[in-house]
């Protein structure tokens, strides 16, 4: 192997890229994974522009003879009952997710800061308790929370969802943010404090702006988590007007299972907001997510 030459002109050698078995293996593997990942989504899109009749053919039409946006029009039209329901579910999801996001940022920011900067009795215990929460499935908490929500009159309200979403959003939010605070040099705060700032001022005016990427990442995480949440919403809400998208779609289509184009169109529209949000901000998100596991 021409190792020395490669070391010397690594940049050039990279560009020319020797074609060897491993690299070809990697490419074939990536093509396979791309097909595995993308084909189901493509099939969802193709089905969503078929008519109900065209979807029910065997063998299936790979590309519909008469593509139509009828399913989307129906879902987005506030004049008919399907559209009314869908738009209301969409609005409910948006409301619950936004409220959860704002609250979890407000609660997680100071907590994460404290875990990163202060030592106080019980700090380690609390931090790992926070982490352990993420290991427990919703089902364990479901029966008692249902009873609790019923007792305080929150069943069938969005408040019950926001409160419970905080519990699974918070632990990871705190964990993600702590990683960010750990990487901000404490000297910055010390300098501010020497200049006469209180500890809170140093935190609020110096550290907060620097941790903006972490806060954004945390917010996306909370939003996506709340937007996709299913089991609590499925259990706590029963009135049609309050359902969020995942449950709403399920209720709607379990009564009406033959409308696969409509179901695929609804699935697509449910996915759009979170996928767009994620793709735009994925840099922050991926960094924050992996920060804890891969300390640099």
């Amino acid at each position, binding site marked *: *192997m021409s190792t020395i030459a490669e*070391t010397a002109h690594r940049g050039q050698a990279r560009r020319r890229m020797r074609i060897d078995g491993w690299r070809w293996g*990697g*490419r074939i*593997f*990536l093509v396979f*994974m*791309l097909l*595995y*990942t993308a084909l*189901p989504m493509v*099939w*969802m899109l193709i089905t969503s522009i078929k008519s109900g009749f065209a979807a029910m053919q*065997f063998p299936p039409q790979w590309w519909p003879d008469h593509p139509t946006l009828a399913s989307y029009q129906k879902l987005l039209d506030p004049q008919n009952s399907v559209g009314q329901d869908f738009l209301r579910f969409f609005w409910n999801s948006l409301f619950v997710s936004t409220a959860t996001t704002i609250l979890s940022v407000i*609660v997680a920011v*100071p*907590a994460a800061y404290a875990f990163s900067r202060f*030592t*106080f*009795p019980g*700090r*380690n215990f*609390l931090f*790992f308790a*926070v*982490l*352990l*929460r993420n*290991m427990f*499935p*919703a*089902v*364990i*908490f479901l*029966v*008692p929370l*249902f*009873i609790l929500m019923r007792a305080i009159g929150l069943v069938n309200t969005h408040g019950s969802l926001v*409160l419970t979403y905080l*519990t699974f959003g918070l632990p990871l939010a*705190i964990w993600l943010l702590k990683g960010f605070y750990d990487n901000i040099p*404490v*000297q910055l705060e010390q300098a501010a404090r020497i200049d006469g700032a209180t500890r809170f001022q140093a935190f609020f005016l110096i550290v907060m702006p620097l941790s903006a990427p972490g806060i954004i990442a945390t917010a996306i995480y909370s939003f996506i988590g709340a937007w*996709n949440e*299913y089991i609590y919403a499925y*259990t706590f809400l029963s009135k049609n007007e309050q359902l969020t*998208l995942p449950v709403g779609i*399920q209720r709607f289509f379990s009564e009406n299972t033959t409308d*696969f184009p409509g*179901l695929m169109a609804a*699935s697509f529209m*449910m996915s759009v907001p*979170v996928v767009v949000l*994620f*793709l735009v901000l994925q840099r922050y998100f*991926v*960094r924050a997510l*992996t920060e804890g*596991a*891969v300390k640099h």
Partner: protein
Amino acid sequence: MTILTGKAEALRRPQSARSGALRKIWEHRADYAYVLPAIAVMLIVIAYPIYYTVELSFFNTPPGLQLRDKIFIGFDNYIAILTSPVFWKVTSNTLIWTVGSTFISFVLGFGCALALHRDFVGRGILRAVLIIPWVISAVAASYIWKWIYHSDFGIIGAVLVGLGWADRPPNFIDSVSTVLPSLIVVNIWREFPFAMIMMMAGLQTVPDQLLRAAKVDGANAWQRFWHVTFPHLRNVSTVTILLLAVANFNSFIIPWIMTGGGPSNASHIWITHIYELAFGRQRWGVASAYSVLLFLILMSLGYFYVRALRGNEQKDGSE
């Protein structure tokens, strides 16, 4: 009290020599203000539910959550669970589901991370596409795949028939023998991107010089991977596998929406089974006992998880 070890302790106040735990807590009272809101939320919605679940697991509860009428029955719920054949069926399903999904997701995600490590045209786009299944809702994923598996109009069945490999489209999720593997395929679809993200981040920490040095010493690609890259990724691999295992163990949406645990319990895993016991058959006591058992299993998994994380932190501190 224990002596606290933390990473960023620069702001710590000068500590008065020896003092009692209470005094220490009092000295740090201002610090607690920052964590108090978080602790309050956690206590209400975590500590209380866990306590309540344990309590309910010792009672025979009437349907409809008329909890005033519950009757104390000791360990009868636990005995009923452990002697029921459904329990063992569901447990073996859960094992197959968890181990299968975790292992294959990890291998596929790691493979993608390795293949995407070198720069090439379109890498960013490819990576973004591969991540999407992880972001979209599991409910949407379940419906997409339900349609793909559909026994009359599903695309996989149509391809198999078209190629002459099957006489008629197979019943992927309606048949006892194929339902669990079919659901695992869906679960992996949604999950391998997570492993990919984690391992990509891990790969960035492998020092380039070491790889080049190994190359100079004549190590081939496989040897470089096995002796240099892989040992560097041990911690991130452990954390990733544990997180995947816990997430899989706790899966609910995909089996619940795609099959509801059927046909004849063939795709019931612990979580869906507990849910059905509680909210389907209203056997709150038995469901709570199941939850307590689940809790114990997860606590032991959690123990390893914390140990893996601590291992990271210690290594970090020594560098």
